[in-house]
């Protein structure tokens, strides 16, 4: 409508560099994300996943580059931190947590309204959390809490959802469930989802794009164009094999490279 070439993008990051505590963590990272896309942010521990997400949120000031959010100009981001440790005595039910996502930043006492309740219910339904909506948040399992916090992030209808290792503490079947759920939500609502993981396996079937972080630099694009021997070798600066073993991909760094993550991956 505006005619600007970026109008259709949810996020455009160009040459983003970030230093933390005097150390360069990210160097000239570039990628784009369209509405409705689900993008995996993959990197070994300490490679800068959290730093990238926090700089997109404005918590960490970049030392260079640009971050542009698309959409209507309103800055509406949903966020799931890597670790939300809920006090067991927090007097909040799951639905109260989601309601705080809707209007917890507002001043004054909340007035109960049918519309407010409907939006909270819809967000809880989107993550299939109706069954434990009225239970105290601190008494829910890790996977249940994860769903509630995703609903908390969704309820304001963000243009971009940033999730920091949402699958890390989950058993494989819950991880697959949440990944599939996020896939469905991004498709249905047009929300762009950027989620980090140290483990690529679960994400491959659901992600449209991948950002692969190593040594502060990033390779980004569709999975089939990034998880390749030549691309990852260039990124790491030494030889990396990407093997196709009966429809599964094995990412094998050269010995002594200091990276111990061998990914066993299904071909998308």
């Amino acid at each position: 409508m505006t005619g600007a070439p970026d109008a259709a993008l949810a996020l455009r990051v160009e040459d983003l560099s970030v230093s933390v505590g005097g150390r360069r963590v990210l160097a000239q990272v570039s990628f784009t994300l369209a509405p409705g896309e689900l993008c995996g942010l993959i990197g070994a521990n300490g490679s800068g996943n959290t730093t990238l997400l926090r700089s997109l949120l404005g918590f960490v000031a970049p030392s260079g580059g640009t971050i542009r959010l698309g959409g209507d100009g309103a800055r509406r981001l949903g966020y799931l931190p890597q670790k939300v440790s809920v006090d067991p005595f927090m007097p909040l039910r799951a639905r109260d947590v989601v309601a705080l996502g809707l209007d917890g930043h507002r001043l004054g006492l909340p007035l109960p309204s049918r519309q407010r309740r409907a939006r909270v219910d819809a967000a809880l339904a989107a993550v299939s959390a109706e069954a434990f909506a009225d239970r105290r948040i601190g008494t829910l399992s890790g996977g249940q809490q994860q769903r509630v916090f995703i609903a908390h992030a969704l309820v304001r209808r963000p243009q971009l959802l940033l999730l920091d290792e949402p699958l890390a503490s989950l058993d494989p079947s819950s991880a697959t469930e949440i990944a599939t759920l996020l896939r469905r939500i991004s498709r249905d609502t047009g929300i762009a989802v950027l989620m980090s993981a140290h483990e690529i396996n679960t994400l491959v079937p659901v992600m449209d794009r991948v950002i692969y972080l190593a040594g502060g630099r990033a390779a980004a694009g569709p999975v089939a164009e990034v998880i390749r021997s030549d691309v990852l070798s260039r990124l790491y600066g030494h030889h990396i094999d990407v093997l196709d073993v009966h429809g599964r991909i094995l990412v094998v760094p050269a010995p002594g490279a200091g990276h111990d993550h061998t990914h066993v991956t299904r071909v998308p």
Partner: protein
Amino acid sequence: MLGLLPVGFLDSAPVQHALVIGGFAAVVAALVGVPTLLRGQAFVTDALAHVSSAGGALAPLIGINALGGFVLMSLAAALGLEAAPPRQRAERDLQTGAVFGAGLGVAALFLYLDVTLPGGSGNAVGVLFGSVFLLGASDILPAALAGGAALALLALYLRPMLLASLDPDLAAVQGVRLRRVGLAHLAALTLAIGLAAMTVGAVLSTALLVAPAAAALVLTDRPARALMLAAGLGLAGMWGGILMAWQSYVWTAGHAWPASFCIVAVLIGLNLAATLGRGLWRLGRRGAA
């Protein structure tokens, strides 16, 4: 109900003032106590409460209401804490400990002066442990102003306080100004401490803030109910304690127990009963299931 009260109880002016001001103070303290516990600031509360004793001792020497003294000194300590906001909880405990120690040093001096100087109250025990029956009509207006301000801050910032205690980053993403919320909370906290100190003394004021809120958080999982329960428990503790102190004249043949002891005793008793009752109720439910 009223007929069950001892003869003359409600006709006594000191009892009337104690019930009105003490009840109001207990409600404000209990309400402010809820977000305070959720923010993990029980230790900060205890430190500010103790330091406020310096203000209570200073008040008669500089000719201000005791409430003003309590609030002034705990506010000064709170601002000292806010001047260097800590990154981690461990660091905050360290700072709180330092402010606690320094403040008590000042309190030692002011309490000494309060007892020894001609203009002083000579009542150090009253500053530290309170004397709710000494409150008078002149205390009602300052108490109403301080309590009203604390309640207004609480009502205004309740939601951001809840969100920030759930997770500060989540609050920041939604545009909550964490610093402002922290200051609003500290302001409400110092006002509540001042009010509580006015009734049960600086040292015991923590009990009015923490005990009802702690029980309420165990008993319910909804924020609005937690606040109402805390307020109810605080009020019951204060009124029950005042009644118990009045009756103790009879029980001890004229010696009587200090009101602050009675108030805290009833508060703790209510807490125990609530915890026990909840345990029994759960057991019963499990048995029925």
